[in-house]
């Protein structure tokens, strides 16, 4: 190697080392908030978590959050039951009629809806559902969460269904399958692993949503008698307890936060697993 080349080469090596170092620092800085939040929630929450937390309803000293846990589960299930089928069907429509004017308009609206602050969704559901039913209810809360889920599920389905090769659609059509059977039994089935994981991520997202519930499911010190009653949730209970000057309630809020974070992480890990599950062929 000539001396000129040698010096140019060592200069490049230096630049490369600098760039690698800088991006490593950036990664650490980016992860720092996540690790800090997680570590703090675990350390504060783990101290407060106990058996009564899971079995006793909300109340004074020694009470738990059983009714809030049940409420969160109710709401998330109900919201999923409304949001997931609707979102998948809408997404499938977007993918199968991707070039039509309606599909473009709906795709654009879904992207906008995904960016709307979730508290606005809560206000709208309050104005439409809560005012109409004249009370806060689990149903109204679930409706708000379903609206938050809808664009996420629809756009995920849209993207994944469009990635299904046209050769499979043609195969089905050439077998005399109608358009909707092709979409449902070939396109949806082929894209299913990805869509499942997208749905789980949408569920994880609404598990933590608090703002849309403040004016919809509201809160309840007891178990709700029906889905038409106000309902307590972990999210809103964290908010409520944090606003009090009561140390015991603060501890309860940390425990609730830990449970929520754990739920979100488990859903995220399962979603990742499903996504990695390779479709044969």
């Amino acid at each position, binding site marked *: 190697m000539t001396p000129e080349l040698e010096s140019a080469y060592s200069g490049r090596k230096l630049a490369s080392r600098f760039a690698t170092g800088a991006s490593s620092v950036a990664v650490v800085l980016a992860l720092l908030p996540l690790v800090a939040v997680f570590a703090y929630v675990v350390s504060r929450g783990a101290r407060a978590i106990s058996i009564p937390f899971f079995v006793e309803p909300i109340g004074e000293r020694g009470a738990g959050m059983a009714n809030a846990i049940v409420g969160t589960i109710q709401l998330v299930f109900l919201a999923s039951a409304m949001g997931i089928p609707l979102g998948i069907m809408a997404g499938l429509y977007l993918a199968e009629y991707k070039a039509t004017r309606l599909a473009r308009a709906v795709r654009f609206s879904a992207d906008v809806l995904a960016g709307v602050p979730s508290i606005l969704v809560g206000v709208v559901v309050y104005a439409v559902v809560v005012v109409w039913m004249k009370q806060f209810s689990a149903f109204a809360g679930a409706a708000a969460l379903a609206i938050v889920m809808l664009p996420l599920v629809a756009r995920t389905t849209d993207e994944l269904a469009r990635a299904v090769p046209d050769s499979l659609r*043609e195969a089905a059509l050439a077998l005399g399958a109608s358009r909707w059977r092709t979409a449902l*039994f070939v396109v949806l089935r082929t894209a299913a692993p990805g869509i499942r994981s997208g749905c789980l991520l949408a569920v994880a997202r609404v598990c933590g949503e608090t703002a849309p519930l403040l004016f919809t499911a509201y809160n309840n010190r007891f178990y709700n008698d029906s889905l038409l009653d106000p309902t307590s949730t972990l999210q809103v209970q964290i908010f409520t307890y944090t606003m009090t000057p009561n140390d015991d309630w603060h501890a309860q809020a940390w425990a609730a936060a830990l449970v929520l974070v754990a739920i979100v992480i488990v859903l995220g890990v399962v979603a990742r697993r499903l996504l990695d599950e390779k479709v044969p062929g």
Partner: protein
Amino acid sequence: MLESAEASAKMRADKLSAWFGDKQALRSISLPLVERKVTAVIGPSGCGKSTFIRCLNRMHEVVAGARTAGDVLLDGKSVYGADVDPVRVRRRVGMVFQKPNPFPTMSVRDNVLAGLRLSGITPPDPDAFVEEVLGQAALWDEVKDALDRPGGALSGGQQQRLCIARCLALEPEVVLMDEPCSSLDPVATAKIEELIHDLRERYTIVVVTHSMQQAARVSDYTAFFYLGELVEYDLADVIFTKPSDPRTEDYITGRFG
């Protein structure tokens, strides 16, 4: 053109033209497809041969912006009539594609049953049905122990025969094959050609191919397409020995294409 071929036609294109948007891909094609014979459609890339067979089972219109003029007759009745459901046409006129496209999420068995299931039908004895159809496609002996494996796990040639089986399961009257061997090795190609030869007993077959050797081996009648037009149609023997159009002769002797 051959009068005997006209008389025994199962299907017939009648002044058939086709467009993709503004681009005309077929120019007024009139051609008989003789019952229980193999008709090969040959010609250089872009000559409209694939478009032609896609018009026969109304798959051409699936592409956005595609349209046709003229007519296609099946047993003397138009498949483009206002009251004709393309879904019914496609069940009578099956299609095998260039690239094997078994459904990746379905097992070998389910791929065979897919056509019926997509129409909401389950045969009374599925196992016997699957064995019979795979037998027809000369695939049973190779996959009888792999019926529950995914369709995509088979070799390319086996996948293509699985696609043929999937098509035959609907008991079509006509089978259209769009360059069925172009992605296969010579051994797999020979098996498919043998299969085409056997299937002629029961089905009217149209094979698009860019291989003149293949057309000469498998077909009874051959049509030569060039730039969207039908240049010549005759018995395969005649086309490959005494073509009447100089363009056909140039093509089969390898002077262009």
